[in-house]
């Protein structure tokens, strides 16, 4: 049984991100989902969360989420050091950056878990499919397929702590092939919301990391069939990488 924390779901809920927490809950019956709002002390800071999810948000709420987490920055680092699982999707990955730069050059300080920085370019959205993989140790190479639709990119060197190596779709920025941030069991990725239901093998990997060896991704067979169909489409050279409908 897992204690799954959703950070600021009242605002950080773009693109169906909350389904990551709900899917984990369905995959591991008896688990609880803790919804932490802006005025609450995060469960992870009290040692009461096994998995912490945060989703993409409109920029004003992304900034509010970072500000709300700032007092718990060292608690968050301690959780990472002791192996708590974090899944930050969409622009929530930028919480790991040092700062976020606006189009006019002004900067918003972020949690600084890495030396990366983010730059916004809201009038030029990047839309793409993403196909990549990472070394899951005993679980073998794990493939990741998902979608990106974003108004910012990250810059800097993530070669020693990227989350996924890309096969299709760029990494943390257009010039990069290394996507996201991985710090221990902290996964940060621009991949959008329903990452876990769309990637049952990644879900299984997360469940294993959390010590739930008996748990299986919910609706495993159906999720796998949808995943396989997506892999086929993404590997088909006929399909464009960028410019989704």
């Amino acid at each position, binding site marked *: 049984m897992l204690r799954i924390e959703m950070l600021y779901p009242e605002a950080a*809920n*773009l693109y169906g991100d909350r389904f990551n927490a709900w899917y984990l809950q369905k995959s591991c019956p008896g688990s609880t989902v803790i919804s932490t709002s802006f*005025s609450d002390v995060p469960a992870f800071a009290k040692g009461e969360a096994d998995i912490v999810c945060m989703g993409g948000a*409109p920029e004003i709420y992304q900034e509010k989420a970072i500000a709300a987490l700032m007092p718990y920055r060292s608690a968050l680092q301690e959780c990472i050091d002791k192996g708590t699982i974090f899944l930050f999707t969409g622009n929530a990955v930028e919480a790991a950056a040092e700062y976020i730069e606006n189009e006019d050059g002004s900067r918003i300080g972020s949690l600084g878990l890495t030396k990366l920085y983010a730059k916004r370019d809201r009038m030029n959205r990047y839309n793409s499919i993403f196909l990549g993989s990472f070394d899951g140790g005993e679980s073998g190479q794990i493939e990741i397929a998902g*979608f990106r*639709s974003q108004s910012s990119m990250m810059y800097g060197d993530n070669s020693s702590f990227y989350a996924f190596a890309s096969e299709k779709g760029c990494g943390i920025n257009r010039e990069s092939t290394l996507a996201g941030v991985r710090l221990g069991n902290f996964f940060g990725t621009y991949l959008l919301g329903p990452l876990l*239901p769309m990637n049952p093998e990644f879900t299984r990997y997360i469940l294993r990391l959390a010590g739930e060896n008996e748990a299986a991704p919910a609706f495993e067979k159906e*999720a796998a069939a949808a995943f396989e169909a997506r892999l086929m489409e993404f590997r088909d050279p006929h399909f464009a990488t960028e410019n989704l409908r």
Partner: protein
Amino acid sequence: MFRFYIALLMGKIARIAIKILGRSGGTNYPGQLALKICPQLLAYVGRPEKIIAITGTNGKTTTSNLLADIFEKNGYTITTNRFGSNIDTGIATSLLTGVTLANKPKNKLAVLEVDERSSLKIYNYIKPDFLVCTNLLRDSLFRNPHPYFIFDIIEKALPSKTVLVLNADDLITARLGSLKGNRRVYYSVARFPEDRDEPFNLTNDMALCPLCGAPLKFSYVKYNHIGRAYCPSCSFGSPAADYTLKAVLDNEIEVAENESEDRYHMVYGTIHFLYDEIAAIAAARSFGLSADQIKRALADASVVSTRLEEVSEGEVKIITYMTKSQIATACSGVFDIVRGFPGKKEVVLILDELHGNVSENMSYIYDTDYEFLNHESISRIVIVGARCKDNYLRLLLAGVPAERLAMSETGEDAAELLELAPGSTLFILPDLTQPAEAEKIRQAVLGRLRSGKEA
């Protein structure tokens, strides 16, 4: 200015040429060409005395058409883009068409539908006297990350002298003009018996007070964040409305304005069309038409809903309802209607298909209320299309029992997978790009019903 006159001339020639040749693109290409020759074209083109612009996520086309009708029936000849595109090239085409070769406006009034994202390109040059904003909701991810993004674009582009006609029941839209101090006119739809006390969709983009951050409380909710809300911790809340659609009475609506009440012919009874009609009434009244002038103009007005088609065969009713795939709020709205429709129902979903070499971002199905389809009155859902497996998983996660679900990737056996019990209704829900597929399935269902093979 020399460039401008060349552009004007070329635009007009292009329009005539397209007409003579019987080609398409006549509502867009002339403006596109003219803008290429003279990028400042919109600053120079002869301006009608008054301009009303209409923008917003949903309902801008219906509201624009209603407004254009109201003015035309009151004797105005208007410059409009009702048959053309709503981005800068379409607006340019309409305005070029609306002036003589000497750049003299032919009409005193323009009614222009404006794409929200094009605001900056348009309002910098064409400063509307009135701007109607119908609502700001989550839209296709491809262009619009979230409603606040669109709000910022419109707010930035907004000329301070423009009078805003705003939906008071959308707290995102309602805040337009607060920085520049624009004059604002508000319209609202009162609480109806079917309205809910709390937000009931997966997404509510007005959960928090924008002033103090406290969770907002709703007095009633129509859908998503559309309804009336207030902050329990500060003075923020839905603004008082100048025009309130108070009630629906048979085929009329009752509208309260200050102390008086007026009745207007109702053009269509669903909530989205009611908002469009009250928006058009509020805009026309703000412009200066009398309530009687509007009443007369609306007396025989109707909107042809090309999105909805109903036929019956034997004891089975078939309703085809075009559903905008990729737009979660639109799909959720249709799913809510299906759930609330009386009697036993079956559903065919044709939302996601292959489109050439372009993939679709399937994230939207996790923002869409598939949970509404988990209802005991819906006995079967057949999912059609290349991405049916995604929808199948989503419906399972919504709690729909597997025995109520079936997939038909090609759609060929979709009709065979339905029960078609006497007295039931079949909803076919195709994306706007899938009318042919929907019709094929409908014909197969009709064929099955006619041959008496129904269960």
